């Protein structure tokens, strides 16, 4: 039942994405050089396919929800848009994703060592690690060892 609810939400999300992609495709300029297949040919084909398939996904989920609720009496099907995930887990994952975007932004200006160390420690704390040996000492050792291995042995330049 959770999957049915999330399929409707995902299908609607895909339709919104298709509308956005269609809007951006209008801006593709270019000569098709005497052929039906110009630079926007495949994007339009794919957008059309995604729209049709997303509608099919939504319809299939609605039909399955109707069948399930008919089977369980007239009780309406519960809709879960989080794929059965607890709010606390979702918040942790959202914070983690935000931290990774910040890490991407800080990688060049801050440099590998400080940026990685901060993210490693923050990540360990976010995952619930409370032992100082594990959330501080090990990250320092691992970050240093990885830096040493990549820059000295593999000759990879790191900022």
């Amino acid at each position: 039942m959770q999957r049915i609810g999330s399929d409707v939400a995902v299908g609607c999300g895909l339709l919104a994405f298709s509308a956005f992609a269609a809007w951006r495709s209008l801006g593709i300029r270019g000569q098709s050089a005497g052929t039906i297949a110009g630079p926007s040919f495949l994007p339009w084909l794919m957008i059309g396919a995604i729209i049709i398939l997303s509608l099919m996904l939504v319809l299939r989920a609605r039909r399955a929800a109707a069948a399930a609720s008919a089977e369980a009496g007239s009780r309406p099907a519960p809709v879960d848009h989080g794929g059965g995930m607890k709010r606390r887990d979702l918040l942790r994952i959202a914070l983690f994703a935000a931290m990774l975007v910040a890490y991407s932004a800080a990688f060049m200006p801050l440099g590998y060592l400080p940026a990685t160390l901060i993210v490693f420690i923050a990540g360990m704390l976010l995952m619930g690690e409370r032992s100082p040996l594990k959330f501080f000492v090990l990250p320092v050792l691992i970050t240093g060892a990885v830096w040493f291995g990549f820059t000295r042995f593999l000759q990879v330049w790191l900022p």
Partner: protein
Amino acid sequence: MDYLAYLLPLFQPQVLWAIALGTLGGIVIGALPGLTATMGVALLIPLTFGMPPVMGINMLIGIYIGGIYGGCISAILLRTPGTPASAATVLDGYPMARNGEAGKALGMATIASACGMLFASIVLATLAPQLAGVALKFGAPEYFALALFGLTIIASLSGDILKGAISGCLGVLISCVGADPISGVLRYTFGVSGFASGFSFTPALIGLFALSEVFTQLERLGRTEETPAKVSGRWPSYQDMRESANALVRGSLIGTIIGVIPGTGSGTASWISYNEARRTSKTPERFGTGYAPGIAATESANSAVCAGALIPLLALGIPGDVVTAVLMGGLMIQGLAPGPMLFETRPDIIVGIFGGTFLATIFMFVFGMMLIPIASKILLVPRRILTMSIVVFCFIGSFAINLNPVDLYTMVGFGILGWGMQKYGFSQAALCIALILGPLAEANLRRGLLQTGDDLVAFVSGPITLLFLGLTVISLALPYLQARRAKRAAA
């Protein structure tokens, strides 16, 4: 004589070290539940960037072979398959471990994996050059039909055909970002110059298959972990080997055939092989109770897929499964385009890969047997440290290829996308393969239309084109027909 000369670089100490290290790393990655061979290959592709092609590619093949084999360790000791390929091994492996025969079960799995791989490696070295010879005659319509077949079979085999198809279409649309392959017109770059050549493939792969697993691990944090079974002994008995001989041969054959079919993969092969072994056994009731032939059937099949899946990748440029799709990224960063032309232009690489597959199998067997007594220790790696270490590797790996910070955002974006797809039942494999085949399909479709003056008939004529289009229709229709038959049988 040339072929022997092409094999010589494999025996240089640094190449042997790279293959051995890759195989050992693959075994450890495969053994840890949640870390897959695909993730291992994606994560370590950047390490091979500065290596000579034969060394780099064979290191990745070592990770692939080791990773698929390593999945059996946690399947047997924890009842949790390390990789999806080892799911069927749980059925007989875990009961054997519970009966105090964990060492014997791991020994049987190691022997079966090595046999399956060796058999499939011989088929790879024999069949791939023949197939490449045929593929050399392909023109634009044939390549378009082949790419279309590759895309549809992957969508249709990803469990839910509708979601598989959406994943594939999404992958093709994402592959359109950047300059168009025929006229060079920029598409969906949003003014970011870093996207002019499209999303970098390797950071996208690292995000899809490695970073997405980090998010999945975050979800699993609260769960209690099982304690691995104790391991004693190592070698299966003579009777076990005699009883398993048929399952082993049949599994190797099934795995190789399934590996050649694009989009199927190790998981499918091991289930089919297990069912076949039980169906043809004189004692089918012993399967599922800790019976060695059950392990022989699954492990020989899933390992044979590794070499089998290399056949369409090398000969046609079409990945046989999701790991070979990632492996294709490894070939591409070495400046090599897999496909029939590679057999003509770089036979040294092809022969090197054939030889490297054999060497990785030998290393897998040696390390596998050596690690049996300490196998349970591998599974005790602290999860949080491991998760954060993967994050660090994802970032360094994505950055090291082009030294471009835009690649970091690409990797994080694909990581979130991959996790979302996994969570809602969409196919990351279909998206990944569409990212590869999308440009191939577009370039050949448009080139073909240009050459023929928009004559669509050219795309449905010719025996090879018709064969691939026919297979495309069958691969799309088959899941529907099977579902209808199942519904009718249930009624």
